[in-house]
């Protein structure tokens, strides 16, 4: 377990201490997360990677205050997770697009703005801006079923972005898409991250995706869900997909794979 010391000029966005989440089931307690100490700094792109059941989604949900903690604490921008959810401090992208089928793409994107009580004109302005950002201009008046899976997920990304949160939490957003679409969306996401300078926490089970996108890869292991390694990646900000063929990239990917394997070894 490595301790993270963020660069002095970077503000801490997320900090967890001795975090534990336990689910009570009929077969006794399940330790979903145990002893999680993690710091995410402003502007970071942090990926959680690990096999299914390692608690990476639970950790993200705990940060979003969608999952109650058993013990320990989370602070988001200096406040508790609950307070930051109340303050709508983050945007959340789920595994599935979770678009509302009776709303057009524009209305889906502006749903959070409507809930916040923003005026109609400003909502339309924001939707135009963020649909353009995710390359969905011209699809404003389409309904979700008229879009492909990749486009729907992009719309859900625009929905998370349009409240302009500093923090973006993404739970395997491209997990259900094929590799070609996923590569394309990864590049777009990187571009958006660079342009908007947001802090992103990203859950994935794909090693190349994690290494390609992140400034920091958090390797997790199951039973109990815990962090076994935090790997820094410092690839140039304007990297393209080609970087995945370079020895530096492969070396980091190898380290991630080693970490995953180490976490798994006791299993067999």
């Amino acid at each position, binding site marked *: 377990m490595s301790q993270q010391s963020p660069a002095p000029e970077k503000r801490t966005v997320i900090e967890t201490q001795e975090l534990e989440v336990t689910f009570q089931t009929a077969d006794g307690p399940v330790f979903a997360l145990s002893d999680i100490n993690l710091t995410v700094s402003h502007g970071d792109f942090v990926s959680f990677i690990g096999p299914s059941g390692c608690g990476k989604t639970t950790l993200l949900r705990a940060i*979003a*205050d*969608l999952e109650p903690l058993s013990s320990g604490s989370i602070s988001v921008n200096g406040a508790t997770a609950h307070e930051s*959810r*109340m*303050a*709508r401090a*983050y*945007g*959340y992208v*789920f*595994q*599935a697009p*979770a678009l*509302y*089928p*009776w*709303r*057009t793409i524009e209305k889906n994107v502006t*749903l*959070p703005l*409507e*809930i*916040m009580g923003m005026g109609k004109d400003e909502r339309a302005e924001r939707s135009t801006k963020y649909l353009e950002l995710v390359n969905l201009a011209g699809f404003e008046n389409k*309904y979700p*079923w008229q879009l492909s899976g990749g486009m729907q997920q992009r719309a859900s990304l625009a929905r998370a972005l349009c409240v302009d949160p500093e923090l973006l939490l993404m739970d395997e957003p491209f997990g259900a898409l094929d590799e070609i679409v996923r590569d394309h969306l990864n590049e777009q996401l990187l571009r958006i991250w660079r342009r908007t300078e947001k802090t992103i926490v990203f859950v994935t089970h794909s090693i190349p995706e994690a290494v390609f996108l992140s400034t920091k890869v958090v390797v997790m292991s199951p039973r109990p869900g815990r962090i076994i390694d935090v790997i820094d990646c410092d690839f140039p900000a304007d990297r393209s997909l080609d970087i995945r063929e370079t020895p530096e990239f492969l070396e980091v990917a190898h380290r991630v794979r080693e970490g995953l394997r180490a976490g798994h070894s006791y299993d067999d």
Partner: protein
Amino acid sequence: MTTEPGAMGLDVSLQKPSFIAVAMAGKTGPVTIVLLVFVAIWYAGAIWMNSTWEIDRFAKKNIDWTMVQLVSKTMQQERPILPAPHQVLVEMNDTIFLKKITSKRSLVYHSSVTLSSTLLGFVVGGLLGILLAVGIVYNTTLERSLMPWIISSQTIPILAIAPMIIVVLGAIGLKGLVPKAIISMYLCFFPVTIGMVKGLRSPDVLQIDLMRTYNASRWQTFWMLRWPSSMPFLFTSLKVAIAISLVGAIVGELPTGAQAGLGARLLAGSYYGQTIQIWSALVTAAILAASLVILIGWIERYVLKKMGTRP
């Protein structure tokens, strides 16, 4: 560029589809066939059931009868056990189109009496059903306390409770439309409650979590997520509700001493053995019920289309 179909060996695809294939492609063909089979069975039944009495009559008069004579006699009785379809149609034509609407013998008049309490009961029952569903979905105490009563309310036979309602309400001065509407309401809130509880709970976990990440109020979650999600369930329940609302109104008319309404026509018909009158009231009620269900179906299609549902 156009090529000659024959030369390309495409003439097979250009063959006209057979008449039967065309006729059976839409809804009309199959529905017509079912209707024809139904009418044929009805005629057969009418001939069979009414023949005993005719054969007796022939025997009493010592007349040799042929099959043709028998069949034609079975369809001309004034009070047949089972009237033939055309007898019912003639009676319906007389009482729907040829009588003045204000006449006590007009089926239009009786239908409108029944329809008004059907619709009143349906609207009130539908609203009550929705309110109960919202209460149950948002409040677990309400669910535990109300649900058993809601379910047991429907185990009481409506025929047993209807006269009680009429008598009790009559004693406090409520007569005519309202007691019948209450019986309709009693029947039709139930499918709406059950359907709407399911509908309001139909949003998936992610859709609800999304609302939580926006710190949406309960009202916003209801209005922007649960309510629109429940629309398909609402219309399905409303179709059931409006049909049984009509049944409730007719049942409510039976104990009132047969003054007005389709139920009154049924009762009067059975008092005087006027089977043709009973059957034409029955068929009219069935047509009315079907029209109401179809009407709800149209509203459903319109609303769901407005909501952008995949066709």
